[in-house]
């Protein structure tokens, strides 16, 4: 009698591999709910956006809004500040001022130093980080290291003239 192997050497191998492959896909699929369960749950996601009221911020002043547990600086820039910022480009992480704002009088940046995560303090020229001395200008662009990058501009939208929603649900 001839064995399976002699009749068709690849058939059994193919079936074996196909079964293993389908099984592997099944196991991977079964793993997904468990992995997914470790992602932020719906109640945490529900707090993933924050609203900032712009009407209460006078020109030249900055407010700090909590967003996803992090401070966000919302700055009402004066015309002089806007003019000064639009005139120059930073050298460490080159960026135009207009790339960083939606409306020039409103600057919205995440208040976490891109060096090692401290919260920078407000100065007249912008911000300075108390931890390692990084400096940022009034566009949130880094002007002195050791910070490697500009302050992050979060996703935000104007829902009206005087109200923004920071973050995406």
């Amino acid at each position, binding site marked *: 009698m001839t064995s399976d192997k002699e009749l068709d050497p690849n058939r059994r191998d193919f079936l074996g591999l196909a079964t293993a492959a389908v099984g592997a896909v099944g196991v991977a699929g079964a793993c997904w709910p*468990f992995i*997914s*369960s*470790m992602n932020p*749950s*719906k*109640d*945490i996601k529900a707090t993933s956006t924050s609203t900032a009221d712009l009407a209460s911020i006078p020109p030249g002043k900055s407010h700090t809004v909590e967003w996803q547990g992090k401070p966000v600086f919302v700055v009402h820039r004066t015309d002089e500040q806007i003019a000064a910022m639009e005139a120059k480009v930073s050298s460490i992480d080159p960026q135009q001022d207009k790339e960083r704002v939606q409306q020039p009088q409103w600057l919205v940046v995440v208040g976490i130093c891109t060096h090692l995560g401290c919260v920078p303090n407000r100065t007249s020229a912008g911000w300075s980080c108390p931890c390692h001395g990084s400096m940022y200008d009034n566009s949130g662009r880094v002007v002195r290291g050791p910070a490697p990058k500009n302050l992050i501009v979060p996703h935000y939208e104007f829902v009206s003239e005087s109200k923004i929603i920071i973050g995406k649900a």
Partner: protein
Amino acid sequence: MIKKAIGWVDERFPLTELVKHELTEYPVPKNLNYWWSFGFLAVFILALQLVSGIFLAMHYKPDAQLAFDSIQHIMRDVNYGWLIRYLHSTGATAFFAVIFIHIARTLYYGSYRRPRELLWWTGLGLLVLLMATAFMGYLLPWGQTSYWGAQVITSLFGTTPFYGEDIVRWLRGDFVVGDATLTRFFALHYLFPFIIIGGVVIHLVALHWVKSSNPSGITLNDRDNIPFHPYFTIKDLFGVGVFLIVFCGFVFFGPELLIEPNNNIAADPMQTPAHIVPEWYFLPFYTILRSIPDALGGVIAMSMSILIFAALPWLDRSTVPGGALYRPGYRVLVYLFFVDVLVLGYIGAKPPEGVFVVIGQIATFIYFGMFLLLPIVSSREGRHSREEGLPRQAERLIREEQEELLRREHYQARPPTVTPVARQRRDSKGRK
């Protein structure tokens, strides 16, 4: 490359040897039916419970103030939390269903008999551990049924003479089931599965020493054994597939069937629900507890209803191999016992009044009566079959196996071979 790596490991750890001994060359009787797949299934469910349990523990809060709400949080907010919880709650039921079938198979085919007594006892130990784990896990949702179930079961220890009250207070860490009880139950519910894993390893070591029994009850020779892998890995995996179809049916279409509606009400120490029933897997034992009019007597009877299984290897005095296959008397006993357990379970779900009490007491009497009848039935059956002979099928099987054994002994009876080198050395020594 892989060969080299395996070689490196083999030099330091018996990897290939282990795989050979426990899987690819581990002999299993070729006549095993699907009832023998339930051990593998039980291990599968243990793994499932362990994984789903650990992921639930990431979101659960073992605190009397927070526990109930954290379950709602898991059900509503956590991604796939509902799925993981239903897997775990349905898994508890599936675990008992599979283990009960596993035990029923052992009873029906007489697998507890010599030389598998230790295998049987470790299995019973695992059953007790499983019950303890399930009971403690059931308190964690902190619903009404959880709470009062725990209250009742911990109260059972109060029937201990002299020290009853002290023991109950020690178990609860409080005057009633409270926050302290919940937290310790959570800690132990997390610990026990790992002890169960240890027990399973011992159970498997014992199994691989005495090998699987088989439906005929006759120990088969090499000729009638086939390796575990691939033959039984495939067979058991097919069993897992069938199991998962049924299991997922419950998880996705009827998960609440197995959850007492009262348990969706947060625990209230001031108010017991009107009708309180334990989980289905405890019902037969619960009926035995209720059937004895004395509190301490009931607790003893309930404990005995499980412990008495340990005596089976001695109670079964038959000289006929195996279980029910070649023993009609034993078969009747086993079937009666199965029906009796079902009756006990049914009565356990009914309120303890009127005719149910009487039926429960009769069923309890029959339950223990079976164990008393077994020595008589089995020894008479043995005597009878010695006079009349076994069924022809069994006679033939035994004869064939004995012939095989004799043949093997004949070939092995030659004197142990001595290597030429050793012989030379021995000879030269002799000359000096």
